[in-house]
Structures are given as structure tokens and as C-alpha cells.
């Protein structure tokens, strides 16, 4: 692991989330009452406002909704990757969840590109989301 200089400071709401990323798993808040997903992890369900929540591992697959190519970075840990693609990925679990992350792909990003989360450890119990392009027969959503 390469320890990042710029990383989140986990708290009681987020420690398990960032810890799971360090172990290679992407998670989101899941409501035990109405099954709604909420990301980033928060202490309340965005739909039913309940607090009967669990942090559950998601499939980690989704489709690129939008992307940018970062040509200048002010984040020291990321400067070596410039220019790199940051993708905003719509998660398969729910169509109002968008998760950003650096894209690893042999081809240029496009809307609907299928990706898989490949989280990596960047600090003690802290991980970050990386998206990896995958081969897929799924139809490209508009």
C-alpha cells in the first residue's frame, strides 16, 4: 500500500465504510425498513427517514454517467496520474446513486461504459474507490 497524504478523516458514520474500501469492498447504507440505498453513507434513510440501517456491500457494478479528464491536480497523491479520467458512475443498485472515482480503462470513457469497483487501500483502515472497465453484454443505458 502507498499511504496517501490526502485522505478522509473517518468518524462514527463513516469508519466502517472507509475500512471496507481498504479491504476491497464498496458499501452503501441500506434501509432495513424500505430497502432504499443511500450513498455516501449517512445516519438516516433519504427516503423513509428511518434509522434502521445497515452498511451492506454492493455488487460494485455500474455504468459511467459522466466523466472528466483531469489535466491539473492539486492533490499530491494524484499528480503522478495526470492526465487521468475521473468517472461518475451510476450504481446498478439504484439509479440516483453516483459515485466518482479514477477510471482504469484501455479505451476512452463513454456514457454507459460498464465498470466494476476495485477499491484500494490508501491508509490505515482507509480505502478509496477506483473504477475498472469490464467487458459486458448488458445494453448501454441512455
Amino acid at each position, binding site marked *: 500500500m502507498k499511504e496517501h497524504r490526502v485522505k478522509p478523516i473517518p468518524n462514527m458514520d463513516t469508519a466502517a465504510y472507509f475500512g471496507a474500501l481498504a479491504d476491497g469492498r464498496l458499501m452503501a447504507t441500506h434501509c432495513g425498513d424500505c430497502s432504499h440505498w443511500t450513498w455516501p453513507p449517512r445516519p438516516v434513510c433519504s427516503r423513509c427517514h428511518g434509522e434502521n440501517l445497515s452498511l451492506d456491500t454492493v455488487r460494485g457494478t455500474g455504468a459511467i454517467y*459522466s466523466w*472528466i*479528464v483531469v489535466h491539473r491536480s*492539486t492533490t499530491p*497523491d494524484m499528480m503522478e496520474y495526470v492526465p487521468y479520467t*475521473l468517472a461518475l458512475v451510476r450504481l446498478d443498485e439504484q439509479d440516483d*446513486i453516483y459515485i*466518482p472515482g479514477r477510471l482504469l480503462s484501455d479505451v476512452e470513457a463513454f456514457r454507459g461504459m460498464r465498470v466494476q469497483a476495485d477499491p484500494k487501500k490508501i491508509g490505515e483502515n482507509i480505502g*478509496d474507490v*477506483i473504477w475498472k472497465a469490464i467487458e459486458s453484454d448488458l445494453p448501454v443505458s441512455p
Partner: protein
Amino acid sequence: MSVGNTSFPRGKAAIAGIGCTEFSKNSGVTTFTLAVRAIKAAVADAGLAVEDIDGLATFGVNDSISPNVLAQALGIQNMNFFLDQYFGGSVSLSVLGAASLAVSAGVANCVVVYRALNGRSQVRLNGANAAPSRQPWDIQFKMAQGYTIPAQEMAMYARSHMLRYGTRSEDLGRIAVLSRTNAVDNDRAMMKGRPLTLDDYLASPMVADPFHLFDICLETDGAVAIVVTSTERAGDLPHRPVKIQGAAWGGGISMVNNGYTDLAVSPGKAVAEKVYANAGIGPSEIDFAEFYDCFTYPVLSQLEGYGFAEPGGVPDMLQDGIFDRAGGQLPIQTHGGLLSEGYIHGINHVFEAVQQIRGDAAHRQVARHDVGLVTGQLGYISGYSSACLLVGG
């Protein structure tokens, strides 16, 4: 769900004075000093004295100076209203709106709204800070991957508009050129005397593709202050009162306020509907507009959201000169905006709108200048937005 409220105290409060410092890359003084200078200038412009101030209101997400510090320094003992709102351009007009409510309700008589920052020399919004600053809650989920600069986030939304409507770089470039054209002859503007062509724009380096360098506003040191008092009292003061006819607070679309599935829709729409309802004024009655323009794309998106263009319709209208200061049907960014005048977090938009409505904008003066729309950041970052409609008294 309420969309606006016709019982808003329309035009009961007015702007009676405006003041600003020089806008620069390095002020050489603290935000404390900048705020004091802008406030003194605004009070003098209103024909009032510091002793008349009984309210102070500001906002900030990077560096700032608090109302209590200024009240103590200026010896103001009869404070009746204060507000130190957390966040950036999205709340810039909400603070003016709150001041107008305080005055309309009779809670305070003279509220000064101000914004002071050393946005270039000290606390930069790109994260390369010389000093710590309070950060938005959601930044922890973006920071590690280097998704920390507002330009990156807005570029992400610009891309979604390009994918939907075929919007091109040159369309955004025309907004940059329009803003620069309006700044070139503006004495306050950081970009005074420095014209920009579409070719210059297209040749400028990519920062966060699709954003070029010239899609991005200017990190600036400076301060602006606005004196709000009752319209009745403003009538006895030197300048034409600029009534706050309506103000609105509203939500916008951001990556983390779940529930939105189309990020190409203008998040400005929600607050637009409210400010029009609150003011009792619609887009066809507006003479000019100063849109919050931390980047080019938000201007395009707000032209749609505020009802001046159909989705996807802005590029043709830009080419037709509809938004030009000279001869356009709806002049916008008449001073050059945050893109080319300077980034005083949107309060410099209010300064310009007041000059226009007074008829004091000299060679920048637009032909019809009785009704001006001024907006805050449209709600991509923070999920908030705000706007005010200003009308000459």
C-alpha cells in the same frame, strides 16, 4: 410542496449603498481590513455613518471575517441582526434575502451584507491552502481521488449536458468571451484591458476536460459591501433605491442529494420558480441578469433554469447576440462576472446590478435597467441555491 410565497414582503427593503475594495491577486492586507474598507465605503455611499449600522451579515466556505469581530472593531453596540452563513456562492443571495427579511420585519434598520476574502493570496478553493478552512461534508468522499476542485465537479455536469444536447466547447467559450468583453472596459475588473477571443479560449490549456482554463473564474482578493435598509428610509438617501422585490432559497441537484436521476437538468429551475413567485415578476419582465458564474457552464444552465432559453437553446442565442451588453435583449454578466471581473463570491454581482439599476454604470450601462436578476451558485455544490430580484424604486 410550496413553490414560492406571494406574501413575501416585496420591495419593503432596499439597497441604499454599495462599496468595494480593489480586486487583486494579492491585497497585502487581511480579510478583516478588506471588510472594514468595503463597509465604510458602502455606508458613505448610502449617505450614512458607521453608527447607523445595526446588522451585519456574511457567508463563507474558505476565509472570511465574522460579523461579531467587525461589530466589536467598529464599536457597534446596538446590533439587532447578525448572520454568518456557512457555504459559498450558493448562499450568496440568501444572505441578501435574509437581510431584506430582517429589515422588512422591523428587526433591524440598517443591515450591511458583505463578503471579504483573500481568495488568491491566502485560502484558495483549489485545496492548495495556506491555512485550514472548513470543508463541505461530502468532500471526504471525493478528496482521496483528487476530485476536490469545484471546476472538476461543474465540468462533470457540463459533460452530461454535452451528451444530452450536443453542447460544444465553443458554446462554453462564447460565454467566456462575452464575460471578458464586458470586463475589458470595467475599471474594477481584474481582466480590464485584456480581451479574449474564441480562438484564445479554444487554445487555452485543459484543466478538467471539458473545462479549459478560461471556463474557470478568477481567484481574487477583495471585498464588497451592500447596505440594506427600509425602502421608505432609502427614499430619503442620495441614490435611487434598489428594492429587493423578491428573494428565494432553494435546493439544487448535486451528486450526493439522492433522488435526482438526470444531472443535465438545470438545478437553477427550482429556485427560479420560487424567486419569480415571491417577487411577482417573471422572466419576460427582467431587463438584465447577473448569473453566478464560477464557471462558464453554470451560466448556460441557469439561462435554461431561469426560463430564458429552452434546454439546448443557449448556443444559438449566444451566437445571435441575445445576451450581449450592447444591444442584446437580455444583457448578462454586464461587468464581466466572476469569470472576468473577479470572484467576490457573487456579491460583486449585486454591486454591479445596483449600479445598473441606478443608471450609474457609465459606458457599461444597459438600455433597460429597472429590473435585474441576481443569482447564487445554482446548487450543484452544497445542494442549495439562492436568488434575488432587484427593482428600481
